[in-house]
């Protein structure tokens, strides 16, 4: 199961989450949501330490974190 789950429809592509990840695994995807924003994502889920920094920095409550 994924450790970091993005509610992509809520994402506004602000990129704040990409700057705070200590593992540097949050990046912008090639996908766009229905509002036209390029959404953030984590492909390397195994690298995630579930530190929640990305979720705590997101202004739009896009990210849920599991462990």
């Amino acid at each position, binding site marked *: *199961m994924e*450790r970091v789950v993005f509610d992509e*429809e*809520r994402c*506004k*592509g*602000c*990129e*704040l989450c990409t*700057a*705070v990840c200590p593992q540097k695994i949050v990046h912008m995807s090639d996908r766009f949501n229905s509002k036209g*924003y390029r959404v953030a994502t984590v492909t390397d889920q195994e690298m995630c330490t*579930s530190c*929640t*920094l990305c*979720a*705590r*920095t*997101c*202004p*739009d*409550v896009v*990210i*849920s*974190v*599991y*462990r």
Partner: protein
Amino acid sequence: MKQLFGPPRALQERPTHYCPGCTHGIIHRLIAEVIDELGVQEKTIGIAPVGCSVFAYDYFNVDMQQAAHGRAPAVATGIKRVLPDRVVFAYQGDGDLASIGAAEIIHAASRGEKITVIFVNNTLYGMTGGQMAPTTLLTQKTTTSPLGRKEGQHGFPLKITEMLALAAGAAYVARVSVHNPTHIARTRKSILEAFKTQIAGRGFSIVEVLSTCPTNWGLSPLESLKWLEENMIPFYPLGVLKAPGGEGMK
């Protein structure tokens, strides 16, 4: 697997209208997390201001009332006095609180109203297109100070939180920022302290949160956080200015 972090209950599911990277969303979430932590969702009443955050009444999953421009502390006073067992908070921007609402905030603090004010300072009027506010920094360019704010023409920026710390009725006064995860955690702690101050009946509490406006600053969201750190914090120093029990002015 166990969920470590998810949306707080005190926030509605509805997406916000805020611009990408606007830190209003972080501050909304922190307030909702504090309401959840204290278990006061059923008895919290929020006051929405005029400004970008006017639609806060659509975003918090608590009872909300919207106030005329700058009058949120007056409306909060009325609600708290009629319903003293409720937790009442006002959410205001700097154009709302420091300019048209300056009288209301100063007298609410002076009277020691048992309310909590979250004061979001992004140095300009966001909703109306980035005009100069009392909090605009010297040399900062806005749509109404296109050559930069000059003290001789526009006056100096106003440190209203320092003024409120002098009010005898103010019990908890702090300035925090949300430009990185460490400071986001401190902001959450400050908002929690402010709510606890109110619940303990100690008096007026206010938390000023330094915030960004990528759209009107003409910067990307990440550049805006850097601009906040480099330009706003030197003029608006962070810290707890006053707290119950005598800490403060540090």
